[in-house]
């Protein structure tokens, strides 16, 4: 009897130690996360002022300045990517969900999944080979193509998943009213998938907004204000990368502010996308 009791105590003790260890490890992860956010907020907040949005980066040695060219560049590049990836991704998603019997359906799904797993730097290489080598210059367009290809699988998958959720009866009802296939998809199916697709698109945008590797040899960066997508163009992640590797204190401060700005947008988009689904 006594033996059993000590055995039980031992087991309970083991359990207690196990539970506490798991808890400690789980919450320990919050420390680096808090440290990252703390440093970005602490160093970034002072420079995330009006100047940051309306001024060009200051030359070496001068204090102040902003990230105007990078902000404009980022929005231009991501905007064009969205214009390419959202409609095309939705078409692919509809094809995947609707044409299940088609001979290339499974192959297309495999292609989308493969595309999704390709390392971001490879997109940069391929966009370089397609659009930078033939024209002999870096351009915002090549960066947009690289990012659009990255976003494409996310939009396609989100569309396919949302379409799968729609009950078949909805489609039948639409047919019964005399609508043809095009009208049914456009007026009935897609509107009822709106939430799922929007959330997928928002997540896709927040992903590509912070991507740097595909921009290195496509957008390349530009010290001057540029609205021309056929020329090299600056972007926020590129600015952070270039300024972070520089030895200048002032540039680091702009990079911190850019990081804070980028995190706020990325976080905001993911919060919005979550609320959209609800």
């Amino acid at each position, binding site marked *: 009897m006594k033996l059993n009791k000590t055995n039980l105590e031992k*087991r309970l003790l083991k*359990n207690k130690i196990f*539970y506490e260890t*798991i*808890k400690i490890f*789980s919450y320990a*992860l919050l420390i680096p*996360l808090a440290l*990252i956010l703390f*440093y*970005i907020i602490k160093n970034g907040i002072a420079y995330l002022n009006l100047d940051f949005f309306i001024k060009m980066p200051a030359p070496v040695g001068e204090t102040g300045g902003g990230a105007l060219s990078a902000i404009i560049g980022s929005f231009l590049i991501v905007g064009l990517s969205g214009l390419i990836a959202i409609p*095309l991704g939705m*078409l*692919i998603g509809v*094809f*995947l969900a*609707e*044409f299940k019997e*088609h001979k*290339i359906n499974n*192959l*297309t799904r495999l*292609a*989308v*999944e*493969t*595309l999704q*797993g*390709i*390392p*971001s*730097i*490879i997109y940069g*290489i*391929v966009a370089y*080979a397609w659009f930078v080598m033939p024209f002999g210059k870096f351009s915002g367009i090549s960066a947009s193509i690289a990012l659009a*290809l990255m976003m494409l699988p996310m939009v*396609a998958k989100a569309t396919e998943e949302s379409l799968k959720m729609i009950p078949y009866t909805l489609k039948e009802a639409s047919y019964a009213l005399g609508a*043809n*296939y*095009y009208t049914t998809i456009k007026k009935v199916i897609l509107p009822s998938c709106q939430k799922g697709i929007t959330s997928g698109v928002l997540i896709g945008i*927040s992903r590509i*907004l*912070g*991507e*740097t*590797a595909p921009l*290195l*040899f496509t957008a390349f960066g530009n010290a001057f204000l540029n609205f021309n997508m056929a020329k090299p163009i600056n972007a926020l*992640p590129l600015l*952070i*990368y270039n300024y*972070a590797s520089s030895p200048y204190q002032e540039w*680091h401060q702009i990079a911190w502010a850019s*990081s804070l700005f*980028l*995190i706020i947008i*990325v*976080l905001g988009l*993911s919060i919005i996308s979550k609320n959209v689904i609800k």
Partner: protein
Amino acid sequence: MKIMINLTTHKKNQLFIKTLKGAGYLTLIILTLFLFTLIFNSFLSLKTISLSFLFNTNWQPNTGNFGAAPFIIGTLFTSILALLISIPFSLSISIYIGYFLKNKKRKNTLETLMDLLAGIPSVIYGFWGLMVLVPIIIKLQTTLGIIPYGVGILAASLILSLMIIPYSVTLGKDVINLVPTDLVEAAIGLGATPYEVIKHIAIPYSLSGLFAGHLMAFGRAISETMAVTMVIGNRNFIPKSIMDPANTLASVIANEFGEASAPLHISSLIELGLILLIITTIINIIGKIIVKAYTIET
């Protein structure tokens, strides 16, 4: 009049169906072109250097000597180390969220924080690592009496481990949650403690899922570029210890591709990209096969 309208909508309908099928074919064309571009552009390197590319330990662009071995070893070194560092954390969180945590609010908070960790752009991880983590490592190296590089395998692995934890947790917490309740309740009914339930029921049951999650996280670590490029030190030699600066497949491309001008140099860098693509694709496919088998099983 009415017939005409119907005809135009009919045409529109046909066109729409064609467009949808076209989009499906376009996806295949894009992927094929993608692979073709990589193979075509690394052809020069494939032809001139051939298989010795994989085993040559020298990478000296100025003398025309190209070997991928330092980067393959650098990639495996950092990724395996990152995975090993991340496992205790990712397993703990998977078990904590998937089994213990019943409080919905707290569960949501932890999951949101995981999303946040996954959502931070990699360049920001790199920047933070360079500004905060590297100085700490320099201090550590000075006290240990090693050359204080700061940047290197250790810094890269630490940052990477942080970045990949959310990826293994996403799948891990789900597979632990999927362990059938009757099994768990039967074990509890026999008097098992939570620790025993997890050790003898939950983990064996969800082993393949946990493995797949960590495998995919490992794939992430291999393909991660910016954060690693910024903190690994960019040195083209085989690293001898975790304190050494090194380079990975992805980081050497990020670092040298923009400045490469010799055709063989560019071609060799693209071949590195091809190797990277092959490794990550194989890992992803294995992971997906396991996950698919899993969802059919349950």
